[in-house]
């Protein structure tokens, strides 16, 4: 949403216009939930989002438009999540769960010269719309995202679906840039492997 749209929406929010809140929730709640999920996990994510909304409403008057409304909302969500957060996430940070369809790992390359031993399989469609028109592939993608660790899937969704910059993800989740890069790369390779498997076999 552009700054001018933000400003207009903000004006209506400050007046307490219900329709404006509906637009706000519809536009941003999914992204807020991903941020909460990344920090506190599945179990508490919804509570954190509820807390964050209340905090948003109470602090609306302080929003100065120095960041986008989206960035501001996500920062409030991250702070609400960190307030609840008790376990030590660093332990699981780089845990790499095995994915049902594996990844693009070392076994795909020749140990002698590092060239592809099993070349990437050519997908049947070359537009995202055509690929997504297959219900089974869409379900398979959802399923694969769920199989990733909380942090891997969150980072991937924040980057690809929510379009955040890597630096924003680092700030929200208090992760180093190198960790975000590792998480993102591992997540992508697993999703890639799942799509490839689906294209090759028709199965998830």
């Amino acid at each position, binding site marked *: 949403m552009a700054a001018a749209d933000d400003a207009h929406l903000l004006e209506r*929010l*400050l007046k*307490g*216009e*219900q*329709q*404006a*809140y*509906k637009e*706000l*929730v*519809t536009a941003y*709640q*999914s992204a807020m939930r991903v941020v909460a999920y990344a920090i506190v996990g599945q179990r508490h994510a919804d509570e954190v989002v509820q807390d964050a*909304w*209340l905090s*948003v*409403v*109470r602090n*609306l*008057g302080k929003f100065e438009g120095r960041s986008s409304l989206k960035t501001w909302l996500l920062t409030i969500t991250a702070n609400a999540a960190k307030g609840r957060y008790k376990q030590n996430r660093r332990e699981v940070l780089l845990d790499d769960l095995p994915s049902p369809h594996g990844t*693009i790992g*070392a076994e795909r*390359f020749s140990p002698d*010269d*590092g*060239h*592809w031993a099993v*070349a*990437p399989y*050519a*997908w049947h469609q*070359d*537009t*995202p*719309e055509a*690929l*997504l028109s297959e219900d089974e592939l*869409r379900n398979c*993608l*959802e399923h694969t995202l769920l199989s990733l660790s909380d942090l891997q899937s969150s980072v*991937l*969704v924040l*980057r*690809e*679906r929510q*379009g955040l910059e*890597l630096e924003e993800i680092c700030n929200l989740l208090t992760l180093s840039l190198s960790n975000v*890069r590792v998480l*993102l*790369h591992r997540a*992508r*390779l697993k*999703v*890639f492997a799942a*799509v*490839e498997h689906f294209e090759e076999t028709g199965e998830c």
Partner: protein
Amino acid sequence: MLTCKEQVARSSDYLDGQLTFRERLLVRHHLMFCPNCRRFIRQMRLMQAMLKRMPQAPVPEVDALAERLAAERRKGG
């Protein structure tokens, strides 16, 4: 010259603009000569585009939440 394995290892950084100028050139140079890696990168981009377009689950009870937040605002603001 990068190997395919090295190219794949750098692929996310390449797509995210995180490589140094020199590394970026190395990847481009490899892609120029390697159809398999070109296919890999093209399909990585396709996967990114798919994730971007995946339908989001609708927010449950959006009206009730909007009503509550608007009321909270009118009460406090």
